[in-house]
């Protein structure tokens, strides 16, 4: 059994990515399409939230992805710092762009949802606030990549930023909870109602739950496809610039 580190070979990774990509992409498209269509067209309105409950099929998956993508970046950054496999840090870079879009989607859908539910686009609720901070971390991470010319230096620095940033993100999360405790409790009641069905019938919750699950899977697959694609792109770019550099030399 070959070690999984073999996939850290850029050539092997590119090959694998190329074979896997079409399948994952198709699967992602199908799952997402089924999930969203099911959710949008074939689920009833919530008795309290009306049709806005349909936003859940985008909001919750994208919010989950936004957090988990950062977690994945943390892991791959650590791998780079410890084992120095270029692919892993490039995967982090590729994932970050997806992550920032997911964060943005979660923020926007949340804000749009907040207007009818809470009567305001934005409140400084702990959950929303820590999400905004996450968004800032993504922005800083990407800006740092952009600002550095030397690829290895950029890889090292962004990886350290990712790790230090994660620690501070946890701290902020705790701090924010503390800072705004007791305010805007409404959200969690509605969430509980909508998803776990504690204050409605079990059946209703399942009606919402299965399409939601499908959407979540769809978002995950979409993410996987995009990360494969973007990482391969980064590998190609690195190789091109190395070739060009050597060309200049001779």
């Amino acid at each position, binding site marked *: 059994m070959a070690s999984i580190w073999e996939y850290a070979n850029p050539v092997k990774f590119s090959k694998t990515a190329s074979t896997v990509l079409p399948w994952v992409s198709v699967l992602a498209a199908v799952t997402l399409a089924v999930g969203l269509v099911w959710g949008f067209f074939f689920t009833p309105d919530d008795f309290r939230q009306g049709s806005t409950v349909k936003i859940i099929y985008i909001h919750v998956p994208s919010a989950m992805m936004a957090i988990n993508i950062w977690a994945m970046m943390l892991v791959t950054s650590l791998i780079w710092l410890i084992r120095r496999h270029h692919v892993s840090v490039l995967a982090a870079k590729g994932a970050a762009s997806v992550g920032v879009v997911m964060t943005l989607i979660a923020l926007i859908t949340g804000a749009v949802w907040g207007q009818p539910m809470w009567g305001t686009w934005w409140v400084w609720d702990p959950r929303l606030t820590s999400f905004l*901070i996450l968004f*800032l*971390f993504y*922005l*800083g991470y990407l*800006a*740092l990549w952009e*600002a*550095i010319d030397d690829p290895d*230096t950029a890889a*090292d*620095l962004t990886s*350290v*930023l990712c*790790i*230090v*940033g994660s620690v*501070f*993100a946890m*701290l*902020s999360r*705790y*701090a*924010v909870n*503390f*800072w705004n405790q007791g305010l805007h409790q409404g959200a969690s009641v509605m969430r509980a109602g909508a998803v776990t069905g504690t204050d409605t019938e079990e059946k209703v919750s399942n009606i919402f739950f299965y399409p939601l699950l499908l959407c979540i899977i769809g978002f995950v697959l979409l993410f996987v496809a995009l990360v494969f694609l973007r990482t391969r792109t980064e590998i190609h770019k690195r190789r091109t610039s190395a070739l060009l550099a050597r060309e200049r030399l001779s």
Partner: protein
Amino acid sequence: MIALLTRDLKLAIRAGGGFGLGLAFFLIVVILVPFSVGPESGLLSDIAPGVLWLGALLACLLSLDRILALDWEDGTLDLMATSPLPLEGVVTIKALAHWLTTGLPLVIAAPLFGLLLNLPQAGYPWLVLSLAIGTPALSVVGTFGAALTVGLKRGGLLLSLLVLPLYVPTLIFGAELARRGADGQATTTPMLMLAGITFGVIALLPFASALVLRVNLR
């Protein structure tokens, strides 16, 4: 190490006062706030602890790029890296010098600025205490940011962008401590958290700073 500290302090004082300028900036932010939000004193005293913390944070932030950039540009850092001083020591000293020239004067002057914003009477000791505990963390975290961006020409704004989210926990607990103090509420938790953050950061972050600095130097 001591040579480095005294040199940094000397430089801060001679170079037109890294010293006075942090304070002056703090003062000006505090003065601009009434101009921008309007002069009603009720509103002002509500936001006073927060504004004072925000001002301190921004004054710190603005002076961050002095911590390492000058030494980078004139090659001092290269030479330092080949000297017997460990880089961990260098960044710690740099953070200390930054705090002594920026954080400490703010702590001392804060009550005065509190006056300008109608800070409630009970708030003064808490404001000073929270700044005294919190500003060292700002300097240390700032040094990390400075080390991260030192290679980049005029990384000033990028530095702010990277450092500000890192400042959030300190700001929240610091401002909360000052606010609760002013309102006469319980202050133990934010105080413990603030102290925890400061100690944790002082103990751990210099290693990360030295690491990124080493990467940037090569």
